[in-house]
């Protein structure tokens, strides 16, 4: 029985990845269900179009991995949810709080590159 475990795991991972790929094709907003009571509508984010426009090839430019506070250059984390690492409330020296992480990832990059939305309502669109 033991030998089956990696196989099942591999199948499961493959299925999940496929689902994730499918999901990112369809992705229109950043889900905000990890927040207990989100104050704004979820942020508009069309994954593929964004990355194409922004010229982002590497997944880990956003889906980063930090270990002991250091960015790990060749690993990425698209198999995880942001909230797996970023809790809603930041604890001490740990990773930034989830909202700060989102804003840091999106808005800071937009500011640095002089492109993309930076005002609250440009991402958190009502409708």
């Amino acid at each position, binding site marked *: 029985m033991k030998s089956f475990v990696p196989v099942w795991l591999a199948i499961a991972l493959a299925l999940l990845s496929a689902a994730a790929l499918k999901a990112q094709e369809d992705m229109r907003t950043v889900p905000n269900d990890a927040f207990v009571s989100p*104050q704004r509508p979820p942020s508009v984010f069309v994954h593929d179009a964004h990355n194409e426009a922004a010229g982002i090839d590497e997944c880990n430019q956003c889906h980063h991995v930090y270990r002991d506070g250091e960015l790990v250059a060749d690993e990425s984390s698209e198999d995880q949810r942001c909230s797996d690492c970023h809790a809603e409330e930041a604890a001490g020296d740990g990773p930034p709080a989830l909202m700060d992480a989102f804003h840091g990832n999106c*808005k800071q990059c937009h*500011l640095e590159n*002089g492109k993309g939305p*930076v*005002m*609250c*309502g440009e991402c958190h669109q009502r409708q």
Partner: protein
Amino acid sequence: MHTIYEWVAGPLTWIAFLIFFGGLLYRLVRLVTLVRRKEPFIFTYMSLKYGLRSILHWSLPFGTVNWRLHPVLTIVTFAFHICLLAAPIFLMAHAILFKEAWGVGWPSLPDAVADGMTVVVIAGAIFFLVRRIVRPEVRFVTSASDYVLLAIVAAPFVTGFIAYHQFFAYRWMLVAHMVSGQIMLVAIPFTRLAHMLFAPLTRAYMGSEFGGVRRAIDW
């Protein structure tokens, strides 16, 4: 739009806050030196106990005879001033921007609550506007500057409300919101909005005179 945003949210905000705090400090220092030079007896009569006693009574809704004489105005005035101060300071969007710039944040209000408080401020401003026009004793002492001041105070809330709900022209409305807020901050030290700084001082002085010399209450 990036350039405008960065300009308004950056240097203009810096300038506005510097003028606001610097202006208040300047007015305070000018006042104290003027008192020292011309009316030093004011320091002699100022009393912490009686000053605070008077401020406390006037800070309580219905805590004075005149507040009780005007119940509607009292409720509106207190609601207006509390929301005017609390909504911007504890608005989540403001706290986020401050944290992004300075790395420190503070607890903020749920957006729905801040939204409600904004409505209170706008409604209060409308109430004051109508009162100014309708009540003869207020209209008699009203000049154009009173309407301008009211508009300066109401503008950041009106634009903030429209921008938050994204009713129309979101980006321009947000810029207008930031600029009008900066205008208000800059106006406070140099207009009658300085009552934010001076009212507690004048009240404390009158409270000190009444309590310390006149042995009477002033509420």
